[in-house]
């Protein structure tokens, strides 16, 4: 119940972003009404609607994540939550739920009316709705948590930012190296699995870091930053280790790539 109270409170302050989705939807419907070839127009509108819907959801999630705690801390408003009998998990999850809800609803508002009017909802929407919503939700969650962590790192202006820079640099360098090894072995499916695994693990790590920032940092932005930095450094290390083990296993058990040259290309 308390989580929902926090969610409701976050909604109250930010529900105006839903107007963005609604506004885009209305504009699209107006545009459709001017098209002469309705069949082509509707097909175009489906792809536009889905793209814009997901894009809008992601942008809102990103902006929400960047402000949901760090702005309260900077404006010294976070104490309002801490002065209530709310557990850190309730505060954090309540805010995350509000952000996800707003992002998804805005995305739906932007895309669903045009899809319904396009008349292809039977073939398209029902079949792919699950995956579209899944992509929208997963992307929104990742971006929300990522930008929450980044906003804490940036706004605290502490020396822990150096550890963050080292972590991010090492992580991306490590992922690049692992990806190159898999690509060199033409293991593209394993590469996708690796990236998905890193994304899932990264989302989990970001979630834990965000929770610890609230639970252990509370109103102290610098202390919260320290917890975020250490958690993310550990997560990055663990993910790279798991990725390295996975890549080594794939390369060991994969049959060697058979290079066959075409007769006409043989050099003398």
């Amino acid at each position: 119940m308390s989580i929902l109270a926090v969610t409701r409170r976050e909604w109250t302050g930010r529900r105006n972003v839903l107007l963005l989705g609604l506004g885009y939807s209305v504009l699209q419907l107006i545009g459709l009404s001017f098209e002469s070839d309705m069949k082509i127009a509707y097909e175009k509108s489906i792809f536009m609607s889905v793209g814009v819907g997901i894009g809008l959801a992601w942008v809102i999630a990103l902006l929400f994540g960047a402000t949901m705690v760090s702005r309260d801390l900077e404006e010294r408003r976070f104490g309002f939550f801490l002065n209530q009998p709310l557990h850190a998990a309730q505060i954090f999850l309540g805010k995350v739920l509000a952000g996800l809800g707003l992002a998804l609803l805005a995305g739906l508002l932007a895309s669903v009316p045009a899809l319904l009017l396009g008349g292809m909802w039977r073939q398209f929407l029902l079949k792919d709705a699950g995956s579209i919503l899944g992509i929208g939700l997963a992307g929104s969650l990742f971006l929300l948590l990522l930008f929450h962590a980044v906003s804490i790192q940036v706004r605290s202006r502490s020396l822990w930012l150096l550890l963050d820079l080292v972590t991010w640099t090492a992580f991306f360098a490590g992922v690049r190296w692992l990806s190159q090894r898999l690509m060199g072995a033409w293991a593209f499916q394993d590469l996708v699995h690796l990236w998905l695994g890193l994304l899932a693990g990264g989302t989990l790590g970001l979630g834990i870091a965000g929770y610890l920032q609230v639970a252990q940092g509370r109103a102290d932005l610098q202390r919260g930053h320290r917890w975020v930095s250490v958690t993310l450094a550990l997560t990055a290390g663990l993910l790279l280790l798991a990725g390295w083990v996975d890549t080594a296993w794939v390369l060991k058990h994969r049959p060697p790539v058979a290079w066959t040259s075409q007769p006409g290309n043989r050099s003398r």
Partner: protein
Amino acid sequence: MTSQVETLPIACHQVGVRYGRTQALDQASFQVEPGQVYALLGRNGSGKTSLVRCLLGHQKPTAGRIELFGQDVWSARQTLMHRVGVVAEEPDAPPLMTTRQLVRFCGSLYPTWDQAGVDQRLGRFRIPLDLPFGRLSRGQKGQVSLALALGPKPSLLVLDDPTLGLDAVARREVYDELLGELGERGTTVLITTHDLAGIEGLADRIGILHQGRLLVDASLEDLKARHRKVSWAPSQAVAPTDLAPFAPLWSRTGSLGGEAILTQGDPSQLPGLQVHPLSLEELFVALVGEAEVAS
């Protein structure tokens, strides 16, 4: 002994807070008894805000510990907040929420929420319920914060400079509300304030923080009994040596005569001296001034 410590609303043990090289709070120890009004005073930057943040579990002290009702506030914040009402120095409620929404939000979190009491208080303060919190005046924000803090019928009330920026009428209303609460329920109160005249009639015990150290922790009655304010006319020749036996805390001589605050003995024995009642403000200025000279 154990049961007494367990029931103490506030017990600070050697609390220290450090920001980099700055020691904001140094070994502050004090206790607040049930039903007591403890006024924590100090100049700007003396460490009051850091202490209050630690006291509410917003910040972990770098040294020492703080217990509310016998429980460590850092680890048991959520449980303890059921019994604590807070008015922050800067009204921190979400600016876009209306007072009605704020009351609903807070009311849903406390099983002991006194809706009728909150409605009455907001009515007495004449607060427009459907105006966003951010659009209320400074005084109204403070009044809403106080009404919300008293809503769950707290055992402990922490007020961080609740009269800051309020006009005389709004200040009076805050104090009247507090007096009513104290009279009805005997709530324990910790208040930080710069309004020394306003708090004088309310406080039982005084703590004075100076440069991060707790300079004074004593009952107001004791402090006033220990310190006497005297004055003398220009015609009276009172030399510093005359005052020395009374251990003057502070003294001043000018063309209009002189005055001093003495810390021991009965100054009425000295001819030409008039003894006056000492206000909290005069006492505060003398104690802090003396500490500044000493440091």
